[in-house]
């Protein structure tokens, strides 16, 4: 309960700081929107030259992209830890975090949230409904609940991978470019994984399971029953990776020696 009230207090403060630079906030939301549009344009232009991509149609691909946006925007709003090593370890900010009586990861999530990214979820829903309508998909009464479960699973997959990578900072504070690379690799989970060769497919399923944020869960709604097993594994994979990440984090914190001032 205490965590919940802390959460809302942070949200309140956050909104105040964002509203100071209103013009920038509007541009930032627009630029997110633009970024999502670029990916859609890519799909549209590609399907101007082909009708099927490894057996998937244009509207199915658009639907997958729309689905992907929802868990991704939740992740992007709360888990901005891509610069964790620089910001917290190298500059010694972690000292401040550790003196406070709230879990360290929770504090960092709160400090670094970017709520405006949640607009991406709205875009995603609009895209999904548009594509779903074109495909003539039907919605059952239980689908919204399954949707929430799969979205949560997907967001946890993303969070788990990025938290695990951030914990590297506890052991080595040298700069690496792994994080931006992960953002790129994350995009490949949006395409039907059968277009890749076996190794990449395996990596995207079990090692860096980004396919569980895009094509696998979306295939449930697209009624592709050959992928159902994977679709329903989504929450499980999400939980497992997230728990692993938190465990790694807790071990990492004990190794933290304080690099700054």
């Amino acid at each position, binding site marked *: 309960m205490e965590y919940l009230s802390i959460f809302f207090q942070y949200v309140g403060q956050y909104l105040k700081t964002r509203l100071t*630079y209103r*013009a*920038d906030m509007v541009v930032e939301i*627009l630029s997110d929107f633009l970024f999502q549009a670029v990916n859609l*344009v890519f799909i549209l232009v590609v399907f101007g030259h082909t009708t099927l991509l490894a057996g998937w149609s244009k509207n199915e691909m658009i639907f997958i992209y729309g689905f992907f946006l929802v868990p991704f925007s939740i992740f992007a709003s709360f888990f901005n830890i891509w610069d964790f090593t620089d910001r917290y370890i190298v500059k010694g900010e972690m000292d401040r975090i550790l003196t406070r009586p709230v879990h360290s990861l929770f504090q960092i999530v709160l400090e670094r949230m970017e709520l405006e990214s949640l607009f991406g979820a709205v875009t995603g829903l609009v895209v999904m409904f548009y594509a779903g309508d074109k495909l003539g998909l039907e919605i059952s009464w239980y689908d919204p609940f399954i949707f929430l479960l799969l979205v949560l699973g997907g967001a946890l997959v993303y969070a788990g991978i990025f938290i695990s990578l951030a914990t590297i900072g506890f052991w080595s504070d040298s700069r690496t*470019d792994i994080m931006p690379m992960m953002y790129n690799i994350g995009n490949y989970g949006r395409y039907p994984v059968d277009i890749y060769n076996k190794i990449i497919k395996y990596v995207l399923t079990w090692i860096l399971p980004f396919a569980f944020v895009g094509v696998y869960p979306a295939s449930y709604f697209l009624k592709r029953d050959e992928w159902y097993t994977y679709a329903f594994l989504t929450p499980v994979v999400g939980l497992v990776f997230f728990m692993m990440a938190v465990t790694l984090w807790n071990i990492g914190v004990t190794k933290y020696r304080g690099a700054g001032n």
Partner: protein
Amino acid sequence: MGKYMEMIRIRFLMMLAYRTNYYSGILIYSINIGAYYFLWSAIYGGKENIQGLSITQMTTYIAVAWMARAFYFNNIDREIAMEIKEGKVAVEMVRPYPYLNMKMMQGLGEGIFRLLFFSVPGMVIVSLVFPVELSVNLETWVFFFVSILFSFIINTQINLLAGIATFFLFNNDGLIRAKRVVIDLFSGLILPLSFYPMWAQNIMSYLPFQGISYIPSMIFTEGFKGSQVFEALINQAVWSAILIIPVYGLWVLAKRQLVVQGG
């Protein structure tokens, strides 16, 4: 001239000190190119060519587009924004050389470093793994290098514009991000412009962005032939000249606007 050479050299040496960062960078680009290779193979499906590009040319196009990006890409927009926010720009402006030229030279130093330590080894690795076709025609290489020089100029001018905009907005992370996305899309980095529908191609032919990635990549893959190459290079040269006007115009206005927030 001497002082500019020195700026390029210093930035080059600065980058050299952190060169280990770049080994992981090569990996990033290779993985990127690899994923695009599989994606495009699926898109081609079995087709001989799309819009006059074969699958080998397409792979080469993507490989060279990403490697050339390492040369023309720089963060001077962010640097200028930081310097304005921190108030350092006031000190920079009293120094005995034009601020914008200095920024451009630093960008060039970075670009040359990345070209030598990143693009060249990266291209070697990529062409070993994927079916990339490197031209044996010396002319193609010469035109390509002239072309990426123009890419650098155009891209840097756009970066300067985005950076100077901080004077008016104070905080313009959003604008810088938007600019990056627009360039990725309209420059032909992710998709050759000839893949777009005609109406979109018409609009883009009036914009400077095609000079950043599409033109050098098409020259390298020999998708442009004969007079097309010259027309493309002239297009780049004209844009490089035209863009000087808004950059200097905005800079003059910005200096009047100057509010030093710190220092």
